[in-house]
Structure formats: C-alpha cells, structure tokens
C-alpha cells in the first residue's frame, strides 16, 4: 500500500504541494482529479522520486521511500507513465520497451504479451524510433514501457491524452484487467471525468496544491467533484 502523508513540494520559492496526503491500495484504482496547475503531476513526481519533497513522508509496502532515488523506487516496483510521454526519441520502440528491463530479474526480461495485446500498433513498429511515432502512438508506448517493469504500483499521468477513443476504451479495460489481477496499486491522474469515474475506487480532488476532497467512490458526490473541476 502507498501512503503519502502531509507532503510539501517546492519549485524554488513557489510551493506546489501543501500538506498533501493520499493512499493507494493494491488491487484498487485511486484517481486524482483537479484543474490545470493544481499539483497533480507534482504529486506523482514526488511519488516516483522525480522531484524531492520538502516535508512529509511517502511509504510504500511499509517502508519509507521518500529519500530513495527514482531508480531505487523502480526496483521496488513503482512505474510511471508520465505526462508528455517522455519517450526516448532516438531509441527504437523495441529499445524503449527494453529500458524497462533494468529493475527486474533476468528471467523476467521479456516484453509481456499483454502489452502487444493492448497496443498492437507497437508490435508493427518495433524497429521505428520512438521519437518518430505520432503523439498517440507514443502515449501507448509509454504505457507499454511502464508495464514491462512488472510494476506493483503503477502511476499514470493523464494516460488518455491524445489517444483515439477506441484505444482509450482499451486502456480502460486494461486498467480494469490489471486491477482485477489484484497485484497492483494504481494511481491515475485524469481530466477526463467520465473515464476516471468509471475506473476509480477512490478519489482525491486537488486544488491549489491541496487535496480538497477525498474518499471512496461510493462516498463521492459527483456534483461536488465537478464543482472543483470547473473554473
């Protein structure tokens, strides 16, 4: 289980997260919602270690990880699908996927079939350079790449951005499938409300660097959530 407690995060002098707490359970999907610039990405970055926090704690599987480097967190089963895709542009699609081998045991070093089942386009483009792909293809690659590391905590930052409707549906199904396996905790940041609502077990709504609303899906009032999302 992931437990984020009261973290603060600064960019220079500007504070992007204020006393943010979040939990994510294995086998559940936790959705983080909020308008532009409220700190969703910042929260995810602090979970995977791409940005250091200035206060608070992050516990994963019972251990404090907030001081660990990102690659050490990856070794503990944390993977991210970042906003803006962050594909390695000069590496081929295959190589992009293979970068996910680094934190896993030698015998696991192959690309799981689920990746190609989900995104058949990747299979046909293995030799193409990641940077040449279209935006949506890159997004698919980014998700595939994260899955190669066999994560136990998967963090997705707006994974549907720029993806065609049919594949969004596929991604939704994939997330459901992964959840159904019961081995993975999933944190999902979304703007696309319907998509999030369909998948979420828990919600956290953010505004101006703070979590303003959170709880299980059953306890959530959709109107209330939507109110935080409007301008």
């Amino acid at each position: 289980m992931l437990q984020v407690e009261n973290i603060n995060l600064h960019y220079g002098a500007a504070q992007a997260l204020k006393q943010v707490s979040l939990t994510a359970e294995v086998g559940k999907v936790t959705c983080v919602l909020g308008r532009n610039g409220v700190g969703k990405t910042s929260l995810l970055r602090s979970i995977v270690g791409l940005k250091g926090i200035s206060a608070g704690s992050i516990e994963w599987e019972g251990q404090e990880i907030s001081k660990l480097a990102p690659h050490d967190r990856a070794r503990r089963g944390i993977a991210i699908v970042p906003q803006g895709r962050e594909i390695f542009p000069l590496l081929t699609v295959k190589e992009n996927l293979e970068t996910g081998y680094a934190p896993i045991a030698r015998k696991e070093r192959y690309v799981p079939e689920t990746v190609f089942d989900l995104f058949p386009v990747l299979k046909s483009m293995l030799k193409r350079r990641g940077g040449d792909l279209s935006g949506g293809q890159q997004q698919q690659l980014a998700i595939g790449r994260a899955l190669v590391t066999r994560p136990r905590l998967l963090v997705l930052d707006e994974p549907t951005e720029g993806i065609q409707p049919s594949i969004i549906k596929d991604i939704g199904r994939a997330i459901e499938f992964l959840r159904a396996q019961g081995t993975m905790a999933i944190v999902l940041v979304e703007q696309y409300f319907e998509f999030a609502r369909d998948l979420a077990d828990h919600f956290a709504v953010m505004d101006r660097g703070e979590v303003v609303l959170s709880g299980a899906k059953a306890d959530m009032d959709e109107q209330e959530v939507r109110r935080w999302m409007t301008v």
Partner: protein
Amino acid sequence: MITQFLLGGLDRRVNVVLALILAVAVVVPVLHLALPPDNPFHVPNYAMALFGKYLCYALLALSLDLVWGYCGILSLGHGAFFALGGYAMGMYLMRQIGPRGVYGDPILPDFMVFLNYKELPWFWYGFDMFWFAALMVVLVPGALAFVFGWFAFRSRVTGVYLSIITQAMTYALLLAFFRNDMGLGGNNGLTDFKDILGFPVQAPGTRAALFAATALALALCFWICSAVTRSKLGKVLVAVRDAESRTRFIGYRVENYKLFVWVLSAMMAGVAGALYVPQIGIINPSEFDPANSIEAVIWVAVGGRGTLLGPIVGAILVNFGKTWFTSALPELWLFALGALFVVVTLFLPKGVVGTVRQFWRERSERKAVAVAPIKPNPEPEPAE
C-alpha cells in the same frame, strides 16, 4: 527613432554600470597623468597597460555574450573577428611607421623589405589613412561574419555544428595568417609601432588616451547591447535561443535575426581588437588560435552568460587572475586557474553576476511569497 531605441536601453542598473565605466575612462587616465609617481593614488604605467588590455578583453567578451547569451549561438571563433580588427589597426600603425623602420623603406613595412617584396600588396592600400583603417576595423570582421553567417544560418547550421565550424574558421585563418605569403608578417605579425594619429604610441598621454578610448568604446557597446537586448528584437533573440523552430512558426525569419546580431557582435569584437593592438604593441596570428576563442567563452561563462555585466566582470576577473597567478605562482598557476573554473561551474552555476542576481531575485521573491523556504531539493531536477 534611433535615439528612442537607444534610450530604451537605459534603466537604473544600466545607468550605474555606464556611469562606472565612464568614471573609469576619466579617472584612471587622470590619476595616471596628473599625479606624481610617488603618490599612493598614482596609477602606474604598468597598471594602465594592464587595465587597457582587460577592457579590450571585456569588450570581446561582451560581444560574444550578445550572440551566445542572448541568441544561443556559441561561437568558438570570436577571436577571429577580434584579430581581424586588430590586424586592420595594425596595418594602419605599420603604415604610420614610414621611413622609421629598420630598413628605412618609406613605404614597405620591415617584414616586406626583408621578404623581398617589391611593392605594397593591394590590400595594404588605404591603410595609411586612419578613417579608412577605422572603417576596415568594423567592416572586415563584419563582412566575414556576414558571409559566414549568411550561409551557415540559411543552411540552418545550429548548436555544436555551428560552434565547430566557427572553430574551423578561426583555425583556418590561423594557419593562413601564419603563412608569410599572406603578406601580413607571418608568425611575427605586425609590430614595432611608432605613432597613432601622430602621437607616439608609447607616450603616457597616448596610453592614457587609448585607455580612455577603450573604456568609452566599452561603454558605448554596453549601451548598444543593452538597447538591443531590451528591444523586442532582444526578446526574439531569446526566443530563438529557447525554441528556434517555434519562432519560425510565428513568422520570424530566424536567419535574419541571427545574422543581425552575429554581424553586430563581430564588429564589436573587431573594435576590441583594434583598441587592443596599439596598447599591446603587437598583433600576430596566435590571436586566431582556437584556444583564445575558447578562453573568451570561458570569461563569459565565469562572469555569467546572458547578462551584460557578466562578460565584463568575467573577462576582468579571469585575466586579473591570470596576471596575478602567473607572477605569484609561476609554476602552479594552472592549478589555481583550473580550479577557479571548476569551482565557478560547480558553485556559481550562473556565473558570478548571474548568481548574485539570482540571489537578489530570490530574496525579494521570498519576501513577496512569504513562505519560509524549506531545505533545498535533494534530488536532481527533471530535465527541462
């Protein structure tokens, strides 16, 4: 319009710097000339020569920063423009020697007599006139920069590729000027100057005047740079530096902008070279040495790239360090200088001026935000 543009370059900080440079331009020569040598405020001959040289280097660094700091063109060949300006001035000074050369030839400079030249090569014509030479000081580097830039920017040569071909350019010029066949004195270059504008170059008065002229030129160029960088053009330059192709998509012809600052900067470097030569007393091809150009880049980096004061501070600081270390630690000075560079990069990432400025900015921001800063980030920042 032009005055408006120039006035646009002024603000409090610029005014302070300008006033400072102008004060130096007046005070130092006066202290040199008017005070007796035993007065503690007397500026000795040695220091005059030294400071004059520093100011020339500062001007070179300033011109380099205009293209590098504001437009992202890292030139590893700026020394070439400096040297060309220097040669233009050197040619004037050579012609001024007249029959006072060792061979006493009224027209031909010594090295030509000695290499059996029968007459003056064509490109030496006109250099007996100061106005012509002064024109050439800006035109020759400007023309080279124009031709070079015209092709390179149009072909969209950028980044290290551009840097390396500027280096190739200065290297090729170095080799060419070494050749005695160039008619410019080969390795020994141009030397043994006597007069400038009728005044003996070594006289204290001339020296003081040259010093003042250098400081004035620096002030003027500083002002121009400041006006350029504050104008909308300056903003376009920074935009080009950050995202060149994006700038094109909103309709700016990037190559023209680059060419404009490139040529402007080359001309300023030429002026620096021209002022440098009479104060040093020699110009030889080693000024084209790629290592010299790299050093100029380093002055800028030390002082703070992308600020106008930075290159000036950097050039003076590094050269002062060099002067001092080479006497105080003649056998170990490279350790000291090398360590200085390493330390500056590690601890003053934005250069001396940049770091100071950032410090002030953060202080005021902190006051404004009024959020107590908590310890700095332990993790590296994600790439921007």
